[in-house]
C-alpha cells in the first residue's frame, strides 16, 4: 500500500476500509492442518525450510478448523471422507477460503471410480484449483498467492 510515502509528517493515513481489511486478511491467513494423501506431503514440503511458506504469512497451520481461515484440500477425497470434510468446512468461521490442491481434489484425477469424489467442488465451494499430481510446492505457493490476489479484490458490499 506504500504507507510510508503517504504517511509524511502527519502520522495519519487515510485508506478505504476494504483495502485495509483485505490486506489484513491476506497476510495472516491461517491454513488448516489437514492432509489427506500424497499432496499433503508436498504441502509439508512447502511449509519446510526449502520453500518456507511463512514468507507469505502462511506458516501457522492450525489443527483446529475453528481457528483457521483456509482449507487446503490436499489429496483425494473418498466417499467416506466427504461428510467429514463438509463438516470441517462448516466448522470454520467466516470468512473462509478453500484451495483444491492437486488433480484428485480438483477433478478426481486418475481415480475415476466408485470410491473417489470427482472433485471436491461437489462438496465445498473452491476458490483456487492447483493442478499437478502432486503439485510442486512452488505450484501450491502460486495457488496461495493467487488466492491472496483474489481476496484483495473483494468488495465490502459482498462481505455480508
Amino acid at each position, binding site marked *: 500500500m506504500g504507507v510510508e510515502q503517504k504517511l509524511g509528517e502527519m502520522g495519519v493515513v487515510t485508506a478505504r476500509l476494504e483495502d485495509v481489511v483485505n490486506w489484513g486478511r491476506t497476510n495472516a491467513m491461517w491454513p488448516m492442518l489437514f492432509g*489427506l*494423501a500424497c499432496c499433503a506431503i508436498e504441502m509439508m514440503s512447502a511449509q519446510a525450510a526449502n520453500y518456507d511458506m511463512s514468507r507469505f504469512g502462511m506458516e501457522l497451520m492450525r489443527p483446529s478448523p475453528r481457528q483457521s481461515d483456509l482449507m487446503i484440500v490436499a489429496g483425494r477425497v473418498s466417499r467416506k471422507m*466427504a461428510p467429514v470434510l*463438509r463438516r470441517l468446512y462448516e466448522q470454520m468461521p467466516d470468512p473462509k477460503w478453500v484451495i483444491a490442491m492437486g488433480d484428485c481434489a480438483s477433478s478426481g484425477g486418475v481415480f475415476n471410480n*466408485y470410491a473417489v469424489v470427482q472433485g471436491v467442488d461437489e462438496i465445498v465451494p473452491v476458490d483456487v484449483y492447483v493442478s499437478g499430481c*502432486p503439485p510442486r510446492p512452488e505450484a501450491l505457493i502460486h495457488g496461495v498467492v493467487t488466492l491472496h490476489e483474489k481476496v484483495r479484490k473483494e468488495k465490502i458490499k459482498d462481505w455480508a
Partner: protein
Amino acid sequence: MTDIKEVSYEEIRHLVSDRALEGETMLLNMGPQHPSTHGVLRLLLELDGEKVVNCIPDVGFLHTGIEKNMESKTYQKAEVMTDRMDYMNPLGNNLTYVLAVEKLVGLDVPERAQAIRVILAELQRISSHLVWLGTSALDVAAMSVFLYCFREREQILNIFELVSGQRMMTTYFRPGGLWRDVPSGFEQAVREFLEVMPHRIDEYEALLTKNPLFLDRTLGIGSISAEDALNWGLTGATLRASGVSYDLRRFAPYSGYEQYDFEIPLRTEGDVYARYIVRILEMRQSLRIIEQALRKLPAGPVRSSNRKFVPPPRSEIGTSMEALIHHFKLWTEGFSAPQGSVYVATESPRGELGCFLESDGGPKPYRVHFRTPSFDNLQVLPKLSKGFLVADLVAIIGSVDIVLGDIDR
C-alpha cells in the same frame, strides 16, 4: 452426498467395555482430521482418566479403489496407480508391481536397470524414513528435526526429478527395465548426496538419540515382544526392533540385492525408541547399498530387448516396420500375460509389500491385490497402546510408521 445409514446400538455395543456404559470411562474420538494420526486415521479411544483402556482404529477414509481400477487398465498403464498407493514409497511400489509383472510373463531385466532400481529404491527408503523421522519427532514436540529432514528429502527428490521429470509419482520403473536411462548428471548427484548424508544423520542423532526429553517420551513406551510381533504379523522396522531378523532384501533377494553387503539393524526392546534406532541405522545401511551399487554400476541397456513386452526405442520406429507394429500393438492393446497367478514381495520402508497378480490370459490383470505393510502393522495398535497415556499413543502411532494410502489404497 451419499446417504449415511444409522448404526444400531446392538451393532456397536461390543466395541466398548461395561465400564464405559456406566460412565466410569470416557469415549473419545480421535481423527480422522488430527495432526498426529499421520493421515486420515480415526481412532475410537476408551479412556480411564488419561490412560488408554481400548483403542479401536477405523480405517477406510482414504479408500481409493486402486486395486479395482487397475483391473480395467493394461499391465503397463495400471502401474501409474501403484505410485499413489503408499505415497512415501512410490518407487518401491513400482518395483513390487513390475517385479510381479516380470515374473508373470517371464521377462528379463538388464543388469544396469537392476542396479539403478536398487539405487533409487534405497534413496526412496531414506526419503521415507526422513519423513517418518521429521513427523514423528514433531509428534513428541521436537520441532526442528522436521525442518532438517525435509532439507535432505528435497535433495533426494531432486535426484528423482533429474531421472524421471517428477518429484514423487515417477512411474520410472517399467516392466522389463526403466523408462529411459539415467541422465549424465545422475552419478554426480547421488555421490554428492552420499557425501553429505552421513553427517546429516549424525545431526539428527545429536538432536534426538541422547535427548532426555525424547528418551522420556520413547523409552519403554509401546513395547512388544518378538513372539507377539510375529503373531501379529508385523514386518519391517517394527518387527526388527523386537529382535526378529527378517528383511526380504536378505531372505528373499530381488533385483540383485544378494550382491550387496549390508547389515540388518536389530534391537530387542521393541519399544518406540528401539524402532527409532533401527530406522536411523537402516538409513546408514541404505547409504552403504547405494554406494556399492553406484561403484559397480554396469554399462549397457536399461530395457529388455524382448519386443513383445517392451516398446522399441523411438529411433527404430522410423526405419523398421516390425518396430512400428510392436509399438502400435503395445500402446493400443497392451501385451497379454499367460494365465496364472504370481505373488512377489519386496521390503518397503514399512515392511513386506507384496503384490498378487491373477491373469486370465488377457492384456489386463484379472485381479490385483497388494499385501501392504501398514495395514498389517496398524492392527497391533490396540495392543501397543493399552495402558499408556494419550500422549504416548501419539508417539506409538508415529513409531509404527503407518501411511494411510498404504492401508486403504
